[in-house]
């Protein structure tokens, strides 16, 4: 009796999601008479949704590498740049059609990712983080220097593809780009979903949790670690390819260091080792500047920097009160367990020297789940493991 009900509920959820993604977001602003209805998606909102889909692709890839495989990368901006430039050069200099450039961008970047992944085998923790950060720092300089290939600081202007003739009159440019990004993002999500639930994905997780144990079980650690890099870069390359179509422009300035750091922030805030987390993180990340306009509406005597200060503060608060990001938060709410927020809240005051009684023991789900938060969720970093000092 139970199974069909769940299936029906799932089906309903999927139908609602599909309606929202494929109809409400792109078309709601053409409804006459809706007026100032708050959930109406104007043209700019459709563009924002496109951006979310785009960033979700790279976040998925980075999460496969960092969340599932435990290798930190601060250099994914470089991979997006490789993908973006591959697509742009093929379109601009060689006249390729746009649809052909996206997979080529992906495979090209995947190859680069493989080449980066091989030396990365020797590095862990902060050393890997800084080595990949070096990649992100050098990329704009390299792009500027080899202007014969990359057109230097002026960048490459590419015409965003117009809607195909069949859909002429049905979709405008913004909507067409939205559907393009959305469909690719969905395909990439399905790919990521399948990787995570396959032998490869389980090997990734096993390596993250203990390389030695994974090796003992017959997993080739170097093979899967470089594979994680290649797959992750493939995702970033696809994102780069889509980026070129959507923005219509690439320049060395499009891919600065901050971008790479932002990708990492995205997946940690969204939730490490979580498909949903990658997408949520991308959404949060694109929508954060919205706070800006909210603040402007309040007419506070604040300067332009206020939203950024708040952004920094909210990053800290999210990390303190939602240890496993938004995805972890939603997971617990979905399981009718109290979100870790209450637990973290009392922990927070306890740890800075104040004790507050919270009502966590009377919440449904009990304190049993809440008192062992560290058992759950990912342990994404290698240096988190027990370290011993060899010399003493």
């Amino acid at each position, binding site marked *: 009796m139970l199974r069909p009900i769940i299936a029906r509920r799932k089906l309903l959820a999927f139908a609602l999601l599909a309606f929202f993604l494929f109809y409400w977001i792109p078309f709601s602003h053409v409804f006459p008479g809706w007026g100032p209805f708050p959930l109406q998606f104007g043209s700019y909102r459709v563009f924002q949704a496109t951006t979310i889909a785009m960033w979700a692709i790279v976040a998925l890839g980075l999460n496969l590498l*960092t969340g599932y495989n435990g290798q*930190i990368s601060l250099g994914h901006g470089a991979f997006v740049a490789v993908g973006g430039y591959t697509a742009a050069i093929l379109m601009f200099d060689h006249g390729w059609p746009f649809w052909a450039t996206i997979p080529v961008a992906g495979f090209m970047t995947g190859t680069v990712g493989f080449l980066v992944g091989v*030396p990365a085998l*020797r*590095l*862990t*923790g*902060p*050393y890997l*983080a*800084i*080595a990949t*950060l*070096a990649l992100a*720092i*050098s990329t704009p*300089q*390299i792009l*500027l*220097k*080899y202007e014969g290939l990359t057109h230097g600081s002026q960048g490459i202007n590419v015409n965003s593809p117009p809607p195909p003739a069949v859909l002429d009159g049905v979709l405008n440019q913004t909507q067409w780009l939205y559907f393009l990004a959305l469909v690719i993002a969905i395909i990439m999500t399905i790919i990521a979903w399948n990787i995570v639930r396959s032998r490869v994905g389980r090997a990734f997780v096993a390596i993250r949790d*203990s390389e*030695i*144990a994974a090796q003992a079980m017959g997993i080739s650690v170097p093979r899967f670690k470089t594979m994680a890099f290649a797959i992750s870069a493939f995702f970033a390359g696809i994102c780069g390819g889509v980026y070129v179509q959507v923005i219509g422009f690439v320049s060395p300035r499009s891919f600065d*260091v901050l971008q790479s*750091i932002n990708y*990492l*922030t995205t997946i*940690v*805030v969204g939730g*490490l080792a979580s498909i949903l987390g990658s997408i949520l993180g991308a959404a949060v990340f694109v929508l954060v500047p919205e706070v800006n306009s909210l603040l402007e509406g309040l007419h506070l005597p604040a*300067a332009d*920097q206020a939203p*950024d*200060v708040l*952004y*920094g503060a*909210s*990053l*800290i608060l999210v*990390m*303190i009160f939602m*240890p496993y990001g938004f995805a972890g938060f939603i997971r617990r709410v979905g399981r009718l367990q109290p979100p870790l927020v209450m637990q*973290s809240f009392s*922990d927070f005051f306890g*740890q*800075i*020297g104040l004790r507050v009684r919270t009502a966590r023991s009377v919440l449904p789900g009990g304190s049993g789940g809440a008192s062992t938060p*560290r058992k759950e969720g*990912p342990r*994404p*970093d290698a*240096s*988190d*493991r*027990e*370290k*011993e*000092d*060899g010399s003493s």
Partner: protein
Amino acid sequence: MELFLQQVMTGLATGSVYGLVALAIVLIYRSTDVINFAQGEMAMFTTFFAWMLIDGSFLGFHIHPLHFWIAFALTLVFAATMGALLERIVIRPVEGRPILTIVIVTLGLFSIFNNLATWSWGGIPKAFPAPPEIHVTGITFFGDGALDIGPTVISYHDLTIMVVAVGIMLALYVFFQYTPIGLAMRGTAQNPVAARLMGIHVGNILTLGWALSALVGAVGGMMIAPLVLLQPPMMMGVLLYAFAAAVLGGMDSPPGAVVGGLTLGIVENLVGTYTTEEYLHVDWFGPEMKLTAALVVIVLVLLIRPTGLFGRRALRRV
């Protein structure tokens, strides 16, 4: 040869600053495994504090402008307090969480400090004074001049930077090797659990570590500010170099951070000098890629020694 020595000297001076900030990073990493991305911005923020004291406009109030070294000392106190408070209020709640969580918290701090500084003091670069001249028995220290040391000259400010950096490093060495608190800090860095069993208050030691690190960073900030002008983004480049220096030397080795910083400073200056059109007749490389070159060197070093030049290999219990 003169040019070469000149560049090495300049490299040593900037390298000392990289070394100081790298030292600050290593101090925190060693005891808590945290890579502090806010280190540079904390240093920038405290340097603004020093500037307010020297300039005589403290948060909009007019105060009596203080002498450089008095402001310097007060800033060190401010920096240490700020570091301790940050550890208590912001870092303590996420202690023991996955490393990436803590890294994101420090990125949040980065954003807060950077934008608070822009908010409070504006984005216009300000001249930060170099230490003023002092005359001791006829010999001039500090000031604008340059010291003639045989084949080359070295500006007093570069000299100040090096002297202050060496002073800080010696002080830290003595602190860690010969004081009970230093011993407690080393013990905590190696094995927090055993340290706690030996009666060390690990929490206080961690707070002290952050205070110390903020202090060292503040010295770095005040030393580099006269060279790069005081402005909110001034430490970004320095921070990247400092990270690279810390990694080059080994993230858990304070002497390594210093050696890494000096090496990087020299390499950066030499590459910047000798890859110009005048010396190098290729079009695929130039001085604008000196950062890339420095980073390539670091990655190559890491490939041979994955934990840096002086870093210890972390052995894992299975």
